[in-house]
């Protein structure tokens, strides 16, 4: 099937063997690639009850059919494994160059199994694939690993864990191209548990062949034109980056402050996208084949580095209440260097600050850097301690806010869903996003079903953020479409301008079959359901589909935009299960059969 390489690498780290296996085209057609196909393969190959940090777990690095094509943003890859943060499906997506480079080198994905006896990295030079000793790389940061393996070679791309993944931090992400991250769900801990430090790809190829090249070019060019002409993807995101959301979300009283104790920040412009653009921006950062360029390159002292996105700006700036942009940029830099999920790390520090505020964390545990809200020094130093696990509290915090708060006797202060920290939108003020967090298969996450788009940004049409009405169906549609986009190998941001019809047209031209928009949505639904089925077999309980007590029981106050609001999850959840064809949080046999999940 065109647009795929028809080849997977299977790397057994215990045995030190590497095999090239044919891609199952029927499965690829049914689950597309990336997130969908990776989940299906994982489901077929491991016992979902396996210990996620044991050699019996597997980790897949998967591209999609549109990764490495000329479609705008066609560079994404996905890491899929059983996660150690919550013992459920872990899947995390990243841009940069790596996904396209892996595809150009001739592979649709890599299945890692077992555990190496000592640190190794996988070295791929097109057909030549070899496991190499990584002892000298162990303990190194992202910049150091990239410099050692790839340097400035434009034909090279590096994926790596940092020290955080090596010491099995459950907040460890996987970095690529220095400052891009498959950040969430603790995938870096699984990679670290396998003694796998990095993947290095070198290739001169820059071509992925579509089944109908002329049609693909026509559709791809039309989509790129739509992205360039759309005011959001053509102008707003390139100019201000994702951080332009700071003022919008604060404007509706839904920007969590001080570990979600309130949701209205008194000085949002101290870390807003407008301020970043005015005072810090050096240039835009473009992923491979991206025509949007939302990434920020900023200055940190004399260094020019990848700058923080909206999420870490919120988590450090608002949830930790730090109004020092230099400190935020530095803390975010250490997340990239040490290989930490910036949302999880910063939110865990915010939880630690609330524990300190109420006296649960004693001064003596703070190693001379008190966890005080507003402290720029605390966010930088505790990020480093978490990434390096070089003191007792840092080591505990590296396991995430849920375990930190439980340790100090206040699990209710972990602002997490399924033990993963929620992102930068308060589910009290925006009802649909709260439902999305609660039902996300990978735990607290906005990019599983980004209902902020209709509920706040008015795209494609404005929906009342304060009501529960219609949110079940809305969340389902956004979750299903996202699953398909993640599997195609494109960036979710394309969906500000493109819809299921455009994705269907691209996929059709890529593989030479007529795929309808409805089928794209059905495939997305299939993927969402197989993830849920994995979680069921892994031991997830219906009560895991919930939100922190604070969002359900503590109304927002002193906040005229969202005054008195709580999440009405109790109303939305039954409607959502009905829309999905689920009973008690899981797909019925009928639903699984309808979606041909076997």
């Amino acid at each position: 099937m065109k647009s795929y390489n028809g080849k997977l690498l299977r790397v057994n780290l215990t045995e030190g063997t590497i095999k090239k296996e044919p891609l199952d085209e029927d499965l690829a057609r049914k689950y597309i690639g990336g997130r969908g196909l990776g989940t299906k393969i994982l489901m077929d190959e491991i016992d979902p009850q396996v210990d996620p940090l044991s050699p019996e777990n597997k980790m897949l690095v998967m591209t999609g059919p549109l990764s490495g094509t000329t479609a705008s943003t066609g560079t994404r890859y996905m890491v899929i494994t059983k996660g150690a943060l919550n013992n459920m499906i872990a899947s995390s997506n990243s841009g940069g160059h790596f996904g396209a480079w892996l595809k150009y080198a001739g592979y649709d994905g890599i299945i890692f199994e077992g555990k190496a006896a000592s640190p190794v990295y996988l070295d791929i030079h097109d057909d030549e694939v070899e496991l190499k000793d990584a002892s000298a790389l162990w303990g190194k940061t992202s910049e150091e690993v990239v410099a050692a393996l790839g340097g400035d070679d434009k034909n090279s791309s590096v994926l790596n864990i940092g020290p955080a993944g090596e010491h099995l931090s459950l907040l460890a992400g996987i970095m690529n191209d220095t400052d891009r991250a498959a950040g969430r769900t603790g995938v870096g801990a699984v990679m670290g548990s396998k003694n796998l430090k990095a993947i290095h790809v070198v290739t001169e190829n820059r071509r992925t062949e579509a089944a109908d090249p002329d049609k693909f070019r026509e559709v791809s060019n039309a989509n790129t034109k739509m992205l360039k002409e759309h005011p959001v993807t053509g102008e707003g995101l390139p100019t201000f980056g994702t951080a332009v959301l700071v003022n919008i979300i604060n404007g509706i009283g839904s920007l969590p402050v001080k570990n979600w104790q309130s949701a209205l920040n008194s000085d949002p412009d101290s870390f807003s996208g407008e301020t970043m653009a005015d005072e810090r921006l050096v240039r835009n950062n473009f992923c491979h084949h991206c025509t949007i360029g939302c990434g920020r390159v900023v200055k940190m002292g004399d260094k020019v580095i990848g700058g923080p996105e909206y999420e870490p700006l919120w988590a450090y700036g608002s949830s930790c209440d730090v109004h020092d942009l230099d400190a935020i940029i530095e803390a975010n830099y250490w997340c990239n260097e040490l290989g930490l999920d910036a949302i999880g790390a910063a939110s865990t520090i915010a939880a630690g600050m609330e524990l300190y505020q109420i006296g649960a964390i004693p001064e003596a545990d703070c190693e001379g850097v008190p966890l005080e809200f507003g402290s720029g020094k605390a966010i930088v130093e505790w990020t480093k301690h978490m990434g390096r696990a070089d003191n007792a509290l840092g080591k505990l915090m590296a396991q995430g806010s849920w375990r930190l708060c439980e340790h100090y006797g206040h699990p209710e202060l972990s602002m997490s869903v399924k033990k993963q920290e929620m992102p930068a939108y308060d589910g009290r003020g925006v009802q649909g996003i709260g439902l999305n967090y609660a039902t996300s298969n990978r735990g607290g996450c906005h990019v599983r079903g980004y209902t902020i788009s209709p509920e706040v940004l008015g795209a494609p049409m404005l929906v009342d953020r304060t009501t529960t009405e219609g949110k079940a169906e809305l969340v389902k549609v956004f979750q299903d479409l996202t699953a398909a986009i993640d599997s195609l190998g494109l960036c979710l941001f394309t969906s500000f301008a493109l819809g299921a019809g455009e994705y269907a047209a691209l996929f059709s031209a890529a593989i030479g079959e007529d795929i309808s928009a409805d089928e794209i949505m059905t495939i997305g639904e299939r993927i969402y359901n197989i993830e849920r089925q994995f979680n069921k077999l892994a031991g997830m309980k219906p009560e895991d589909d919930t939100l922190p007590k604070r969002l359900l029981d503590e109304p927002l106050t002193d906040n005229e935009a969202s005054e008195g609001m709580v999440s009405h999850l109790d109303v939305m959840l039954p409607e959502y299960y009905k829309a999905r064809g689920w009973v008690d949080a899981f797909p019925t046999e009928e639903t699984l059969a309808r979606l041909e999940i076997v």
Partner: protein
Amino acid sequence: MVLVKLFAFFREGRGKELEVAWHEGLTAGEIIDDLGIERERVAILLINGRHQTPETVLEDGQKLFLFPPVAGG
């Protein structure tokens, strides 16, 4: 008075915020017009944090936030 806050591109040449004298029947659209902003460029219009339209009549003391088409994630 109505406190008007501007964001993203709307700040260019206009600053971050200004106060506008209130009168009976004042609409958000009148303020947008007076600022020289094309109404169709206003993607998000908040009055006291709630989404409204240019036709919405303002009350004295309210806050009007104006955003062009922008997004993030």
